[in-house]
């Protein structure tokens, strides 16, 4: 409808959102955060969700995670309705959400044990945990507690925990939002490598235009709330593996970036003037 992009081109509807609406009861009455969300995500696809703050990006992610239930519409993952959260849709939370009384190893092992503990032996579970830590380059920090490591490392443990569950879909809620620019770039590159190696299906919420374009196969742009809808869907036709430096001058990359910027700052100018 609003979107010019034919979403049906992706025949593979691995994650399928149909007419999703999310409303909350508030003191001022019913508040509709999201409405008419239709989106089909193919297996192995990397989707980034972008929009101004408060537009309902995280709300949409929570719906796919199953942490909240939509007030209307249906969400389907791999042919099954999403009714509640589960390890098949692993979440990397905005603030890492590591359990502070467990070591990095312990945090990941808890997830591994829950998902694979029923059918695999102790040694195999430990191997899985070690592999997840190695995947994000943190094998040396296995015995450290969350408060002993940096913010970037914590977020890497969060990613390792999510990946260790071998999820069907990896959901990331502004995972790098709290990090400095250099650490963020490093983790984006690592994530690109990991996703290319694991062929993971990813939905990532971000407010960073460069991040959205660099990582995504398609950038899903949300209108401003309340009652936000999908404004545009931008395919990013850049070959993988992607190289940050080479892309910096790539015309396709720049055109994509420009399209997202235009959407955010012209079509969807934020109600309040931005301080930047």
């Amino acid at each position, binding site marked *: 409808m609003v979107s010019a992009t034919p979403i049906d081109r992706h025949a593979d509807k691995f994650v399928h959102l149909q007419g999703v609406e999310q409303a909350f009861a508030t003191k001022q009455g019913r508040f509709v955060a999201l409405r008419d969300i239709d989106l089909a995500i193919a297996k192995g696809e990397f989707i980034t969700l972008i929009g101004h703050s408060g537009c309902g990006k995280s709300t949409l992610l929570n719906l796919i995670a199953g942490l909240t239930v939509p007030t209307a519409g249906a969400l389907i993952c791999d042919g099954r309705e999403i009714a*509640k959260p589960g390890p098949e849709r692993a979440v990397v939370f905005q*603030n890492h959400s590591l359990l*502070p009384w467990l070591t990095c190893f312990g945090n990941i092992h808890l997830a591994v044990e829950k998902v694979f503990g029923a059918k695999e032996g102790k040694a195999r579970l430990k191997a899985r945990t070690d592999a997840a830590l190695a995947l994000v380059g943190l094998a040396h920090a296995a015995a450290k507690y969350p408060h002993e490591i940096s913010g970037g490392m914590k977020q890497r443990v969060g990613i390792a925990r999510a990946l260790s569950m071998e999820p069907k879909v990896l959901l990331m809620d502004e995972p790098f939002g709290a990090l400095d620019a250099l650490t963020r770039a490093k983790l984006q590159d690592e994530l690109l490598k990991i996703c290319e190696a694991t062929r993971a299906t990813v939905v990532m919420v971000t407010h960073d235009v460069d991040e959205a374009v660099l990582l995504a196969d398609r950038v899903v742009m949300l209108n401003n709330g309340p009652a936000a809808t999908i404004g545009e869907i931008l395919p990013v036709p850049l070959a993988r593996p992607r190289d940050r430096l080479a892309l910096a001058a790539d015309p396709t990359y720049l055109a994509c970036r420009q399209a997202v910027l235009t959407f955010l700052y012209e079509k969807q100018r934020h109600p309040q003037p931005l301080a930047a």
Partner: protein
Amino acid sequence: MESSAPATPSETPRPALLSGKMGKEGQGSDALLRLVKAVLPPLLGLAAFVAIWYVATLSGGSGIPGPVATWQEAVKLFGDPFYRNTPNDQGIGWNVLASLQRVGIGFGIAAAVGIPLGFLIGRFDFLARMLSPIISLLRPVSPLAWLPIGLLVFKKADPAATWTLFICSIWPMILNTAAGVKQVPQDYLNVARVLALSEWQVFTRILLPAVLPAVLTGVRLSIGVAWLVIVAAEMLTGGVGIGFWVWDEWNNLNVAHILIAIGVIGIVGLLLDQGLMLLAKRFTFESR
């Protein structure tokens, strides 16, 4: 004081950033200085206290013995802390142990009831709202008001005292545990939901470790209150115990023993508190 002391060469440059990486000799005298700084104020305070006590009791008119006389009594008393003449005439060691035992039993039962109850109140809002008026009403009541009820129900002094301790130590444990459960960050519970942990796993893997520091705070407050109340309770119930002993020595007009008992009660209370503080530190995690 330390500024007037002659500074050794290694001490002269003392910027905060460098002090950690000083030479070996510098470190030695630094450690000594730190020790003096740490020990001097409390020692001075104690000395001043004893001096005031000494001066105030110099005339002897008040009937309160001075520090010297009290010290001599204490030496005698602690020379044989574990004697047993009659049920009402036992060494101070037995009295302290009897009080500690009562506190242990009363507190133990209170913990067994109060901590699970606190968990339930923290987890289920309905229960919290159901019990909150009762708790709010009963909590400010002096536990000694419950002593007659205990005497009536148990017909004996000893369980009545334990009952009083139970009452006084249950409130901090209920309230702290409940507050701790309520303050478990939603993030942790979201993690639990994404991992699809069972209710029992949520309890053992998330809630219990997250709430343990708050529970230990409740335990510490409870023991502190119980140790305050035991003295008064034993004064009323009699038998063996440090509170009874204080009252008995008052009847004997042995004021030096009362002063010693005050010191002993203070030291035992301090040890209990410090011990539990250490325990709490062991189980507290950095939340950042």
